[in-house]
C-alpha cells in the first residue's frame, strides 16, 4: 500500500480543537513550583487553613520524591517552565451569560451548551485553573444532589470535603498526586444522596488555553448507598510548540449497593503531558466503571483503579487508546480485590500508528481473604503499520487459591487482506482502515452514550485520514 504523507496530513493543523483565545487573566502565577506559588494559590482561593497545610505537606513530598523511571519519557517536562496557576475570571457562572465572552465562545465552539440542553443533567466547565461555569438541573438539586466546582464544594460543604479529601488518593501515592494536592484548583465536587438515581449524565469539560499551562483539577465524587451516577469528562487544548501539563486527581467513593460510571474522552492536543490518577473505592454490592478514551496528548500515563473493598463489589475498566505519530499512550488499569466474591473486568484496546506507541500496564491483585474473586483481563492492540509499537505489562498478584482469573492479550496488524476485501467493495483505503479500526473499538464505543460514541468515531476518522502506511 502506498506510504502516504501522514505527518503532513496529521500535523498540528489537523487537530480540530487547536484554536486559542486571547484572554486577559485575572491572575497568573510566575512559572515553577515552590512554596510561594502554593501559598499564592491558597491565598487566591481564601480557603481554610487545613487545606493550606495539606498543600504544603504534599509540596514537600513532591519536591523530595524521585521521578518515575517507568512508563513514558518525561524528560521534556520541566516544572520550571510551567505556570502552575492561572485564574481566568472571577467566580463561577451559573448561566452561560455570566461567563466572560471569549471563554463562553470557546465552549460554544466545543458544543457544550448545546449538549447541556439536550442530554445532560448538569455541566461544569473549567478554563485554565478555575471552574468558570457550573449548573445542575433543578430536579436533581431538589433531590439533594450537589454538583459544584471543587472550590465551591470546599467552601459550601467543608465538612464533607474534609472527611473524604485525599482518602482515596493520598498525596503520597505518586509524584503527580502529590503535585496535584499541592496546587490543585478546580475540578468537580459531586454528592449523590442515598437512593437518588441520576438518569442523565453529569459532564465536566476541561480546557487549557494558555501556553505552558499546568492544569491540576481535583474531583471528588461521593455516591451514597443505593445511589446511581454517571459522570463524563472531556478535555481539549490548543496546539502550542511548548508543552503543557495536565495532572488531575479523581477520587470516587461508591457506597453500599451504589453504582457509578466515569467516562473520559481525553483529546488533548499533542503537546500535553497527561498524567492522571483516578481511583474508586467500591463498597459491598456496589459497582464502579471507568470508561477511558485516550486520543490526544503527547504522553498519557493513566491507570484508572478500582478498590473492591466490600463483599460482592464489582469494578470494570474499559479503555481505548490511540497513539498517532509522536504520541505515547501508557494506559491500563488496576483492580484490587480486598473482599470475598468481588469481580473485576479490564478491557483495554489500543491502536498505534507510525512512531506512536501504546502500552498496556495493568495490575490485578487479589488480597488474602478475598475468596472467590473473579477477574478477567483482555488487552488487544491493533497496529496500523510496520513502524508502530505496542507493549503489555500485566502484573498479577493473587493471594487466594480459589480466585478465577482470565487473562488474554492479542496483537494484530491491520491486514492487507482486510483492506483489500473492503476496497474490493468500493471503500477507499482510508475508509477501509477506518472501518477496521471502528470495528476494533466497537466493544467499547457501544458502552458510550450515543452522542459520545459518534464523537469518538468522528475523532478516530479524523486521526485516520491518510493513516495507512
Amino acid at each position, binding site marked *: 500500500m502506498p506510504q502516504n504523507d501522514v505527518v503532513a496530513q496529521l500535523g498540528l493543523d489537523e487537530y480540530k480543537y487547536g484554536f486559542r483565545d486571547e484572554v486577559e487573566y485575572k491572575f497568573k502565577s510566575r512559572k515553577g513550583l515552590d512554596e510561594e506559588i502554593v501559598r499564592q494559590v491558597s491565598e487566591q482561593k481564601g480557603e481554610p487553613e487545613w487545606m493550606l497545610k495539606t498543600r504544603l505537606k504534599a509540596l514537600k513530598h513532591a519536591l523530595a520524591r524521585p521521578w518515575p523511571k517507568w512508563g513514558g519519557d518525561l524528560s521534556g517536562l520541566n516544572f520550571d517552565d510551567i505556570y502552575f496557576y492561572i485564574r481566568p475570571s472571577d467566580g463561577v457562572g451559573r448561566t452561560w451569560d455570566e461567563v466572560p465572552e471569549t471563554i463562553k465562545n470557546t465552549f460554544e465552539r466545543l458544543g457544550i451548551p448545546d449538549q447541556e440542553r439536550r442530554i445532560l443533567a448538569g455541566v461544569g466547565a473549567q478554563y485554565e485553573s478555575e471552574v468558570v461555569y457550573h449548573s445542575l438541573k433543578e430536579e436533581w438539586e431538589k433531590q439533594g444532589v450537589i454538583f459544584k466546582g471543587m472550590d465551591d464544594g470546599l467552601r459550601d460543604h467543608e465538612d464533607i470535603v474534609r472527611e473524604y479529601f485525599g482518602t482515596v488518593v493520598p498525596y503520597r501515592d505518586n509524584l503527580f498526586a502529590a503535585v496535584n494536592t499541592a496546587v490543585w484548583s478546580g475540578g468537580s465536587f459531586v454528592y449523590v444522596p442515598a437512593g437518588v438515581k441520576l438518569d442523565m449524565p453529569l459532564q465536566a469539560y476541561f480546557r487549557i488555553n494558555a501556553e505552558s499551562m499546568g492544569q491540576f483539577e481535583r474531583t471528588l465524587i461521593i455516591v451514597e448507598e443505593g445511589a446511581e451516577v454517571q459522570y463524563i469528562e472531556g478535555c481539549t487544548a490548543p496546539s502550542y510548540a511548548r508543552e503543557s501539563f495536565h495532572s488531575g486527581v479523581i477520587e470516587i467513593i461508591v457506597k453500599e449497593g451504589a453504582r457509578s460510571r466515569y467516562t473520559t474522552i481525553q483529546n488533548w492536543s499533542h503537546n500535553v503531558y497527561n498524567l492522571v490518577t483516578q481511583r474508586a473505592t467500591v463498597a459491598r454490592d456496589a459497582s464502579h466503571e471507568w470508561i477511558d478514551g485516550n486520543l490526544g496528548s503527547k504522553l498519557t500515563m493513566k491507570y484508572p483503579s478500582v478498590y473492591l473493598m466490600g463483599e460482592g463489589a464489582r469494578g470494570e475498566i474499559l479503555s481505548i487508546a490511540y497513539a498517532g505519530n509522536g504520541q505515547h499512550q501508557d494506559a491500563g488499569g488496576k483492580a484490587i480485590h480486598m473482599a470475598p466474591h468481588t469481580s473485576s473486568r479490564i478491557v483495554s484496546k489500543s491502536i498505534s500508528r507510525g512512531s506512536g506507541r501504546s502500552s498496556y500496564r495493568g495490575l490485578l491483585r487479589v488480597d488474602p481473604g478475598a475468596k472467590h474473586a473473579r477477574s478477567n483481563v483482555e488487552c488487544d492492540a491493533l497496529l496500523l503499520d510496520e513502524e508502530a509499537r505496542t507493549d503489555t505489562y500485566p502484573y498479577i498478584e493473587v493471594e487466594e487459591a480459589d480466585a478465577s482469573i482470565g487473562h488474554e492479550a492479542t496483537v494484530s496488524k491491520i491486514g*492487507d487482506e482486510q483492506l*483489500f*476485501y473492503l*476496497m474490493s*467493495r468500493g471503500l477507499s483505503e482510508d475508509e477501509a482502515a477506518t472501518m477496521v479500526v471502528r470495528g476494533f473499538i466497537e466493544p467499547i464505543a457501544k458502552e458510550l452514550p450515543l452522542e459520545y460514541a459518534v464523537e469518538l468515531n468522528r475523532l478516530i476518522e479524523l486521526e485516520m485520514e491518510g493513516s495507512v502506511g
Partner: protein
Amino acid sequence: MAEPLVKIVDLHAEVAEDGTEILRGVNLEVKEGEIHAIMGPNGSGKSTLAKVISGHPAYEVTEGDVLFRGESILDMEPDDRARAGIFLAFQYPVEIPGVSIANFLRTSLNSHRDEDIDIFDFQDLLISKMEMLGMDPAFAERSVNDGFSGGEKKRNEILQLAMLEPTLAVMDETDSGLDIDALKIVSAGINQVKQEHQNDMSVLLITHYQRMLNYITPDFVHVMLAGRVVRSGGPELALALEEKGYEWAKELSLA
C-alpha cells in the same frame, strides 16, 4: 457484440514480495452477458487471476494487460475497479470484527453511488435481498464474517453481489463449503441476480465441480493449468473433465 467486456491478454503476474511467477500468459475474453467457468487443479492460479483482476496489491503484473470495456485497469486501485463494476466473491472471505454486515453493506453501496441511499430504502433493499437468499434479517447485525460457518461466509458474498449489482462478477469457488441445500439457494440467487441484469452482468465462475454448473449453465468453460488457460470449450468440457480428470487436460495441452 463488438468490444468484449473483459479482455485479458497474455497476462503474466508474480508475487510482488518474492517475484515468484504465478500467471504465465493468461488469455481470456468475456463478452457482455456471458457466463464463463474456469476450472483447474489446486494451485493452478485461478484465485490469483481473480485477485489480479480486482487489483490485489500482493501481485505484480509483469507482462500483458487486463482491459475492461477496452481500457486497461491495471493502474486502478481496487476501490476504483469496484466502483467501475468489478466484483470479486472471495474464496476465503475476510473477517472484520465489530463491523455489522448492514453497516458494511451500506458503506459499500454508498461508495458506488453519487448520493447516499436513504436509510429506509436501504433497509427495504437489504431485507428483500436477504429473503431471496433465505437469510434471517437478524444476520445483518452480525460482524462481517466473524465466526461465520463456511457456508454462511459464502452466502454473505452472494448477498454483497446482490446488493452491489456489478457488471462483472468473479465468483471464486462460491460453491465450496456449501451443503446441498445451500448450493441450490446460492446458485438460484446468482441466477436471479444474473437474470435481472441479463446483458448488463457477466460472470466468471471459478469452480472445481460440475455440480454448480448443473444450476448455472456456462456459455464457456476454460481449464487453467500452471498459470495458463490451456483449453476452452462449451459446457461439455466440464463434463469431460469430471469424467477424465486433469491428467487428460494436461495431455491435451501438451499435444
